[in-house]
């Protein structure tokens, strides 16, 4: 039963990484889009693509948290007690990002839109970084079971920082692919080209980062390394690498709709690989999955909950993504700065 709930938890993390992570990546491209004039079209596209889906994507984080504390309370406590600094910083980032994105559409002046936009974009880069350091800290056994790990050194080692950067990179990579696909669907050719270049660049950069990671993990975290280079862990790493290469090729031949899914596989496989590599430990060297798990009655209830969730949410999510991918919920494309000047004219 613990294994089943663990699978649900990992599924939640994967979903958050490939959906929520891509929204953070969109923020990265917003941040790097250049001045107000030059970046207006890129920012407009990002806002239009994220608008209908970011809340649903974000809720995967809540899903992960509730399954974590209900299913594995004895690991949840120590993680919260040791890693409170990056968790709190990510939390603050989440407030800034969500509120700024929601309110940006109502900004009256270019100055307001800029403040909102910059807040949104900067937070979008910091959140996946902090989440990455949390993953890195857990994976390298920095969380002791009695929760008294060092609040700073636990997540500022080389591997946690590396995973943080990787989190930012994979998000940016997926976001560029998704945005290229959205722009192609809407027939906005200059933005297809703009995001194609970004996607190719990010794919190569993230790929190199991943290869470099092999050496870092080998040097710094030998247990994790051996988990990732043997058995099922190795298979998943290879799947991820292959999916990354296929994505690169699909981008090259401009088949973005397919690239969207393959790029998600590349990221998802490595997360599943991490879980497999750690098996059977939840907190490496400290606590196994079974030891961390809640009572059977709770796990059963949780599985029932997940089944209800599947019955309710799978059709609902399918409907949402179908409507989105068929362009039924698309708003009119509008570069971000221009939108605000029209409001002002209207007021006169």
């Amino acid at each position, binding site marked *: 039963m613990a294994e089943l709930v663990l699978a649900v938890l990992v599924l939640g993390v994967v979903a958050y990484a490939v959906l929520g992570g891509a929204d953070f990546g969109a923020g990265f491209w917003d941040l790097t889009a250049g001045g107000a004039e030059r970046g207006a079209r890129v920012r407009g596209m990002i806002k239009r693509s994220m608008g209908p889906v970011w809340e649903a994507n*974000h809720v995967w984080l809540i899903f992960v948290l509730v399954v974590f504390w209900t299913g594995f309370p004895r690991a949840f406590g120590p993680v919260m007690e040791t890693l409170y600094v990056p968790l709190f910083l990510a939390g603050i980032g989440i407030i800034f990002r969500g509120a700024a994105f929601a309110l940006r559409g109502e900004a*009256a002046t270019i100055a307001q839109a800029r403040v909102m936009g910059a807040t949104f974009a900067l937070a979008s880069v910091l959140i996946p970084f902090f989440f990455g350091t949390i993953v890195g800290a857990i994976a390298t056994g920095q969380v002791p079971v009695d929760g008294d790990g060092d609040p700073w050194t636990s997540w500022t080692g080389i591997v946690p920082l590396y995973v943080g950067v990787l989190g930012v990179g994979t998000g940016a990579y997926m976001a560029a692919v998704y945005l290229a696909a959205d722009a192609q669907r809407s027939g906005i050719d200059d933005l297809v080209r703009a995001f194609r270049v970004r996607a190719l660049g990010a794919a190569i950069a993230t790929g190199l980062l991943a290869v470099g990671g092999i050496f870092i993990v080998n040097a710094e975290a030998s247990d994790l390394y051996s988990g990732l280079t043997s058995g099922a862990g190795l298979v998943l790493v290879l799947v991820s690498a292959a999916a990354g290469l296929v994505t690169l090729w699909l981008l090259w031949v401009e088949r973005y709709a397919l690239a969207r899914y393959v790029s998600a596989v590349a990221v998802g496989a490595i997360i599943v690989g991490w879980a497999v590599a750690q098996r059977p430990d939840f907190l490496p060297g400290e606590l196994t999955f079974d030891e961390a798990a809640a009572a059977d009655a709770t796990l059963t209830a949780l599985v029932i909950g997940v089944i209800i969730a599947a019955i309710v949410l799978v059709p609902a999510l399918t409907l949402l993504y179908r409507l989105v991918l068929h362009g039924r919920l698309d708003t009119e494309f509008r570069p971000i700065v221009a939108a605000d000047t029209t409001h002002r004219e209207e007021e006169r």
Partner: protein
Amino acid sequence: MPLLEVAGDALSVLAQASQFTAVDQDYLLEARQMQAMSLGVHIILVCFGISFPAMVLFMEGLYLRTGDPAYKAIAKRWSKVMLILFAIGVVTGTILSFELGLLWPQFMETFGEVFGIGFALEGISFFTEAIFIAIYVYGWDRLPPKLHLLTGIPIVIAGITGALFVIAVNGWMNYPVGFEISGGEVTEVRPFEALFNRQFWHELFHMYLAGVMVAGFLTAGVYAYAWLKGRRDRYHRVAMIVPLAFASLAAIVQPLIGDWAGRKVGENQPVKLAAMEGLDQTTKGAPLNLGGLYWDGKVRGGIDIPDGLSLLAYHDPDATVEGLDTVAADDRPPVGWVRNSFQLMVGLGTALALLGVFFVAHWWRRGRLPRSRWFFRAVVAAGPAAFIALISGWIVTEVGRQPWIVYEVMRVEEAVTGAEGVPVGYGALALVYVGVAAAALFLLRRLARRPVEWETGAKALGPTESAGEERG
């Protein structure tokens, strides 16, 4: 759960021995305040989340029945407000889930498996709400009208079920069942028994009606204010009447639910009831003090109604009501906070119920709104009053639970984190919330000032002020 043996002699009442050890945390009060602040920010958004969608759908339903573009313009405008408030609610809700772990790790680690399922089911509701709110708001004029209305219904249902599961967890903290405990280890977990505990049903109805009152009166108040400022067109009239009707009906029913809730508290948490009434000594035929405030250790002022408390709490003038003396001083909540908040809630709730009765009766008999400016001023004041009543009631429930995080099982000082820097986190979060609140209010005002989105060709029916074109 351990039951307290009430001893006749007050001196023999000792603080209850606990199975847990207190955590070394100098800033327990700050940790509690930080949690309270985050809940206080979130709860107002929750009120809109659980009740506003029903008002939006009602308005859209009116439009589909009559074809009157005013209804549609209002529904569309409101759905944008709904989306913004929901989005901010999503992030403040996320902070709450973080804080449960960050501030109260021992609570989560020990009892997560008992009540966690409530949050899992709430998560599903939240998810459903997020999905359909996006479809609904972005689907205006893009989906067929009837289908569009249908996509709003899951938002309403998910709002109710979401509140239901969170209240179930809160009810459990106040009446913890569904597990056994020995030596600080939880065994024999029965998660569903934990959810449907004895504090659950009345808390649910009380909170849901409170949500309707807060969202309804606040929304109506915005348009009543516009009315007072001279914007007396049909758009503003309709946009005031609908939320006012929702809120008034809720306000009229709320005292009945409140009476039920009060009796349940007397049954399940007699010490909390004693704190609510400021009753020091266990009393047979206890009087009810109305309006008196508690300070310096006793209730001062107000009017005493003989046997009133016994009558209210047990429907029997001779019933014995347990006083604060049944537990040791260390096991009592801060009586002043609980008693005074309770008086405030009851006072404001009564005034709002009277406003509701007046509005409904006037509408029933005359078929129109009252003409007095005082009525509109009262509606403007009703929103903040409902919010203050909500916060007061919540203080009664949660401060009245102190010193326990899990009632009579685990104390707050045993649940709190041992981490340093709680005041730093508290200060930082407070600053962030002030900033977000200021930005949200500023931008919602801007949204309100934008021209109303009338359908093309509908301008003749509209107000004489500006009629804007479609905005995405």
